[in-house]
């Protein structure tokens, strides 16, 4: 039995929504992380809760990229594909690299399933899989036999088969089974019988790999090296939830979160609902308008108030955001973007709500907009959003997306003590208090909360006198207030840090991106820079106001390529602002960029030849 070292592996598990592929993937990711690899994951599941077994649209996938060197993405194409049924094979095979490894649960390749997947002949027999290393394993059968002894019903036995697959890959990549066995027991503590069974099956899979002739090699992916410190795995929605709690604490306040469930934002509410002992109040409202309404009420009362949703729900909040702008109350609105328009592609990722974030309200109602670049980054963006909202007395929009929300990565745990605090001060001094008198630096008005004696006052959505806050229809006052509200957003630039720029501040191509495309863009830039190309990558954190750093460099490049998962929304904003002839790399498929796609687009601008494109792609992938 030989052991072979690999630098990196991309593996994808695919099966029915009911097959538990998400669990298998998550567990294997944990093992990889535990083994010290750098990892990046990409769960991709259908909108249906549990689509009927065997259907094409019911296929659920989980891709894991684990490596002995730093990685930024879940990988373009899997080296290893594990499929639990024909439908999974049909929908995923096209992505498997040539000569890649294919593990097939043969037991599921029965007439009925083949038909559902639209196969006329059985791919296991018609030779259509010849160009891949096929391992045919009757996982279903092996699972049930492993459980012969147990009391479980056949149905229940069947449910365990994902643990067989898990055991198998554990063996293939030389992972230590003990930790996993412990985890399984913990997870099923409430139901030991199942725990036992799953462990049995997990071991069966592991031993199958060991004993079966078919797998001659164990592949080892040595640990990656990381900056020293403490780490954990985290998804975007977990990190955003923790970030909000920490942000509120740094402001010296309690968090109030109100939301109405919507994919892929719901899990933020689910996470925060568990943090009651932090004094965090969560409110499941009757709809998105009520959710932001409640948040506005809480902000008026002095809480750090947050509401989150996805595109359609954010659309409903537009009018209320305007109220926040007019009354100048601090508020964080999180948009975990998904494919649009309308209901669109609820479980797929997209970046098409940027226009809505910046422009989607009646009247002149500008607000700051910040976007997270990775799962772990949402933590810092959440804190920053809370800081800006409370410092400038303004609603802040925080953009995430389905890819970040569900994806996970190893996350270096921040040093809490080192995070700068930004304590909120509520005015209590009645002397010469004016409702709209502003801080000269931030232009923020005082945040006076009900309960403060002597400062009783009234606010509302009608235009307000620039000093007293009384209703005012005076023409000049309206112009003045409108300009101040706009200026206030520009002032936020005072608090914006360095531009995240990779590569030189001048060159041939500047790739500009924002949000969850960070990994693919950065990796592509590094690859090309590695080949000596004059390519830089600027990744925007703040979209409104635009980062000061960008203005300094954007005109220093022959080409500006704005890469987004939309039809060119940031590109439009940048063209209007800088009058540079920025071109776009746009993908609207509900899927993240592949590094290859980005490299190819840059090469085109460089007038590159296919050959070095491939070199770059190889380099990027090897990266």
């Amino acid at each position, binding site marked *: 039995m030989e052991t072979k070292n690999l630098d990196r592996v991309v593996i994808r598990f695919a099966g029915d929504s009911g097959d538990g592929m998400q669990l298998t993937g998550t567990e294997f990711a944990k093992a990889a*992380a535990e083994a010290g690899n750098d990892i990046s994951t990409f769960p991709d599941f259908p909108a249906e809760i549990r689509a009927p077994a065997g259907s094409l649209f019911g296929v659920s996938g989980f891709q894991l990229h684990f490596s002995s060197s730093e990685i930024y993405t879940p990988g373009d194409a899997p080296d290893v594909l594990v499929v639990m049924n024909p439908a999974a094979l049909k929908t995923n095979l096209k992505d498997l690299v040539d000569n890649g490894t294919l593990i097939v649960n043969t037991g599921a390749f029965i007439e009925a399933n083949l038909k559902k997947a639209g196969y006329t002949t059985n791919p296991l027999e018609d030779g259509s899989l010849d160009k891949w290393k096929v391992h045919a394993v009757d996982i279903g059968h092996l699972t049930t036999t492993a459980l012969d002894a147990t009391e479980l019903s056949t149905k229940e036995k069947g449910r365990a088969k994902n643990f067989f697959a898990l055991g198998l890959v554990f063996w293939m990549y030389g992972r230590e089974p003990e930790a996993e066995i412990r985890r399984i027991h913990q997870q099923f503590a409430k139901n030991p019988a199942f725990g036992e069974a799953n462990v049995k099956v997990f071991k069966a899979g592991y031993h199958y790999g060991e004993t079966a002739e078919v797998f001659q090699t164990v592949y080892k992916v040595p640990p990656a090296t990381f900056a020293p410190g403490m780490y954990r795995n985290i998804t975007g929605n977990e990190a955003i939830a923790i970030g909000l709690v920490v942000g509120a604490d740094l402001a010296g306040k309690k968090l109030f979160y109100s939301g109405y469930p919507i994919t892929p934002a719901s899990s933020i509410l689910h996470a925060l609902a568990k943090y009651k*002992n932090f004094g965090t109040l969560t*409110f499941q409202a009757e709809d998105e*308008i*009520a959710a932001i309404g409640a948040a*506005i009420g*809480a902000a*008026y*009362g002095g809480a750090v108030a947050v509401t989150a949703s996805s595109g359609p729900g954010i659309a409903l909040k537009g009018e209320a955001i305007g109220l926040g702008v007019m009354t100048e109350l601090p508020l964080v609105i999180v948009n975990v973007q998904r494919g649009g328009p309308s209901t669109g592609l609820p479980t797929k990722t997209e970046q098409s709500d940027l226009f809505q974030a910046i422009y989607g309200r009646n009247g002149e109602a500008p607000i700051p907009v910040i976007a997270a670049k990775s799962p772990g980054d949402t933590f810092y963006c959440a804190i920053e959003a809370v800081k800006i909202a409370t410092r400038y007395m303004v609603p802040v929009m925080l953009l995430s997306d389905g890819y970040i929300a569900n994806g996970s990565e190893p996350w270096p745990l921040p040093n809490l003590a080192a995070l700068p605090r930004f304590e909120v001060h509520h005015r209590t001094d009645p002397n010469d208090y004016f409702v709209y008198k502003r801080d000269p630096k931030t232009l923020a008005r005082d945040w006076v909360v009900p309960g403060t004696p002597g400062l009783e006052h009234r606010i509302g959505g009608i235009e307000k006198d620039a000093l007293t806050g009384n209703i005012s229809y005076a023409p000049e006052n309206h112009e003045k207030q409108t300009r101040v509200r706009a200026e206030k957003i520009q002032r936020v630039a005072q608090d914006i840090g360095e531009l995240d720029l990779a590569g030189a501040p001048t060159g041939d191509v500047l790739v500009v991106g924002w949000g969850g495309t960070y990994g693919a863009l950065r990796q592509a830039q590094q690859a090309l820079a590695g080949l000596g190309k004059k390519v830089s990558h600027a990744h925007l954190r703040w979209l409104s106001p635009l980062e000061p750093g960008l203005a300094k460099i954007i005109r220093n490049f022959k080409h500006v390529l704005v890469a987004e998962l939309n039809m060119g929304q940031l590109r439009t904003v940048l063209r209007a602002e800088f009058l540079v002839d920025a071109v776009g790399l746009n993908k609207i498929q509900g899927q993240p960029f592949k590094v290859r796609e980005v490299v190819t687009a840059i090469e085109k601008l460089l007038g590159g030849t296919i050959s070095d494109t491939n070199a770059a792609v190889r380099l990027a992938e090897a990266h």
Partner: protein
Amino acid sequence: MSEAVKLKLSKKDLESDQDVRWCPGCGDYAILATVQRTLAQIGVKRENTVFISGIGCSSRFPYYMNTYGFHTIHGRAPAIASGLKVTRPELDIWVITGDGDGLSIGGNHMIHALRRNMGLKIILFNNQIYGLTKGQYSPTSAPGTRAPSTPAGSIDFPLNPIALALGAGATFVARAADTDAKLMGKILDEAYRHHGAVFIEMLQNCPVFNDGVWEGIKDDPANKQIVLTEGKPLVFANGTKGIKLGAGLEPEICDASDPNVLVHTERGSALYASLLSQLVQPAFPIPMGVLFRHDKPTYESLAHAQLDDSIAKQGAGDLSKLMYSGMVWEVGADGTRH
């Protein structure tokens, strides 16, 4: 509810410095005055009193109260007030809304705030019209109402605000007329002391667009109103007539001497309350006063109980614990995992 401080307040203390912008003769003036007078008599803490409204003539109300006030957006006041109440349970929060603001665009927030027994004191100014937008019919307008948007008469059947509030789960339901300062004062005082969702329907006159919709009722209290008193029978027409439950479970007008005349109790059954809600003009005199009252934990109290409970069980939240939850590992100086 914030403990009332008994230092003497006068009505003036509750008046803001803002010019009142309602039409001359608007019923809102009378309501404003009674609210100011009553809160002064109660001796509320102005700083702990908040008036939150939507949009409409009635919703201008908060500007005229020398308390905290928030004139929000159309129909959303109950939602905004809910967020404030949950985070600041100690505040007294009054929600001012209209038949359009509270029952048309805002109907859903209304029923959900009531359903949750959110500790809000909601006053709905029912003038059966959209005043601010110049007189279109509203969800409470009588069928056939001729208004700018219904020149041939409205064709939808009106909502019964009291029935809706009861059905949604309000725990304090009352009705008063704008001009009946005495009854209104009494209701406001009891509403102030109630823990839970209060719903008060104010019969309000809009002299400009719907003048006199309530005249009939207000001008002939003897025959068109039943003033409810705890423990007293449902009688009217100077004690000559009463209300009983007829065969087929329908309310029926009977002689006051009839042994079956119903006796009022604010804490009556849900069915009794809905019977009261079904006493509507022209068939019946309409009940004025507190129709229903019921004690039930408020949303905000339950929410905070859960916080306290989880602190008691898990201890006050520790941020580093929070971050270190899940699978945590260390990377050593050599850059590899230990």
